[in-house]
Every structure is written in C-alpha cells, then in structure tokens.
C-alpha cells in the first residue's frame, strides 16, 4: 500500500450543531480512520459546518437492495392506521 490508489473509501457524517443528528455529507479516501477524520474536517467543514464528525469505512455499510425495494418496504405500505390522520375525531375535541 504505497500510493493513494489503494486507500480505502470512507463515508463522512457530520453533526452540524448540537441537538441534531449526524447526516451523510459525502466520502473520501484516506489510509486510516484518523487521517480520514482530518481530511473530512478539511474537506467538509471549512466553514464551520460541523461540531462533530464520524467516518465509516464504506465497505462496512450494509444497505438494502434497490432491486427489491418495493417488496422490502411493502409491509409498511398498507398500514395507514399508523398515522394520526387515519382517525376521525369528532368536532370540538382539542389537544388530541
């Protein structure tokens, strides 16, 4: 491993301010986690866009497959009763 050619890819997540969760902002190459963090700081927070950074090796992410996305998410599709708007509430009832 002597050139940037073999450096792994890292996914970068930034917390933009306290109280918010980390969000994905992009990716970068780096030889290890520590340098990935430093590179992420220089690349994704040049204007104080973040107060905290996570880096995760891209190869360690398990993702749902786009090919089966309808089937995969189908179980939620017909359960509209999970939403408050499903219910009829008589007029005059407040704070419900």
């Amino acid at each position: 491993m002597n050139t940037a050619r073999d450096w792994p890819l890292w996914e970068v997540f930034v917390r933009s301010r306290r109280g918010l969760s980390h969000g994905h902002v992009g990716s970068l190459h780096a030889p290890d986690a520590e340098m990935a963090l430093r590179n992420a700081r220089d690349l994704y927070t040049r204007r104080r866009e973040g107060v905290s950074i996570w880096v995760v090796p891209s190869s360690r992410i398990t993702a749902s497959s786009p090919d089966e996305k309808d089937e995969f998410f189908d179980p939620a599709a017909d359960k509209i009763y999970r939403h408050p708007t499903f219910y009829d509430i008589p007029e005059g009832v407040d704070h419900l």
Partner: protein
Amino acid sequence: MHDHDPEERFQAIIDDDGRIEPRDWMPPAYRKSLIRQIAQHAHSEIIGMQPEGNWITRAPSLRRKAILMAKVQDEAGHGLYLYAAAETLGVDRAELLDMLHDGRQKYSSIFNYPTLTWADMGAIGWLVDGAAIVNQVPICRCSYGPYARAMIRICKEESFHQRQGFEILHTLSHGTPAQHDMAQDAVDRWWWPSLMMFGPPDQESTHSEQSMRWGIKRFSNDELRQRFVDMTVPQAEVLGLRLPDPDLRWNPERGHYDFGEIDFTELFEVIKGNGPCNRQRMADRRRAHEEGEWVREAAAAYAAKRAAQREEVA
C-alpha cells in the same frame, strides 16, 4: 410498478423529477455520460487552481492573500466532492486522474489562458466563477443524486468566489488610472473566453439533446450564455468597466442584451491543445502529482505504523 422494464422505470423516475441513486439500475450510456461529465468537471476544478495559485505569493496584501488561498482551497475541495460523486458510478479516482494525466479526459478550456496581472484574479472571480455559477446552478437539480448534492455544496461556496473577484475589480477600477487600466485590460482578455465556457452554439452541441432527456442538463448552452450576459452587463456598469464588444446592446423586443459573434474557431483550437497554456497546465499537473508521491507514501507509512502500535497494545 413491479414488472416494468428497468429502462422505462428509470425514465419514469426522471420524468417525475425524481433522483437516480448509485445502486439504481441505469442505462450504460447514462452512466458513461455522467462519468465523462463529472470527471471533466472535477478535473476543471483542480486544474483551475493553477492560474490563481500563480498569484498567491504576489497578492497585494495579507487580506487578499488569505482570501485567494481560501478560494484555491475551495477549488481543491470542489474537485474532491466531484471525484467522490464520480466514484459512486463505479470508477476509481486514481483511474480518472490517470485519464487526465495522459490526455484521455479533458478539463475546461478556460484554464488554458494565462494570468498576466493581479487584475486577472478579479476578472477570473467575477467572470469565470460567475459563468461557472450560471452553468452549475441548474446541475443542483440534476437527475443523478450524488452529482446534484455535490453541486449544491459547490454553488454555496462559489458565491464568495465571485464576490471577491468583483471586489478586486471594483477597488482597482476606482483606484489610480494605472490600476483602472489594469482592470480594464483583464476584462478585455477574459470576457470572450468566459462566454465560450458555455460551450458551442446549440446547433453544434453534440451531447445536449440526450442530456436534456436524462435530466442531466436543463438549459441549452445558448440559453445559459444569454443569462450570463444579461446578469453581467449591469454589473460592469457598476464596476465602471467596459465589456469589449461593440455589438453589445439592450434589445427591448427580446428583453435581452444582444451581443457580438463569438469566435468559436479559437475555442476549438484551445480544446485541441493549442491554447496559450495547455502544455504548461498539464506539465504542472503531472509534476504536482509525481512530487506529491512522498506525501502519499508517508501517510501510508504512518497508517501502517499506527496499526502496528495498536496491535502491540491489544
């Protein structure tokens, strides 16, 4: 929705103004065309550091130097956002850099012009970054998600680039007569190349129609060029600088500025490699890459040492 032909489904997402994401099915030609465009865009960002890097050591004040360094750093960042977006399509950044270095892929021809005076830093920020913004804002809504997201980030940063250039020219234009002349000279040299940044006229543009259908491009070259001219003419008046085109005038019937004919033979010569700085830019790029090898080696060695230390402790 289930049994649709993937191509139909792909086009339906685009026609619905939806976004295609990396692991979605996409036509091979869409993938290929995006890789070409995003790579060329990334190469332009990093080659674009050279004409301005040329003036960092000679900036007229510490304030200007700090600003110019921040701008050049941003351009490096833009290149990296874009290489990362291209990699989601299944290419390696190292491979793209190889293609830049051996001339198989191109970068924007605008960076093949020399930066002769400090006023060029103003003209580049105002006109070149200004034209880039007009080109790039519609790509923020491009059909390919990672490219669109990179562009949103880039466009946010570009407005500082344009303003600092405008400020440089405004200061020079309202300075001594010699400073004013220097600003005018820079605008005289950069105006036409900036108009060429929008590419050949619509009748001669080879990739446009398909790119429009795929939601990669949203406006034609000529539409974007006109938008840039209409935006820029009033700004030139505030600067007190003349745009070097005797045919430039407001056309009340069209509701746009008319402008003179662009000499596209020059553009094609520069694309072919015969611009004033093509050879120098490529030589500098290759040299920077080669001379950076020890930094990459050191980073890898450091990573290996740290990993070994961790193992010892464990």
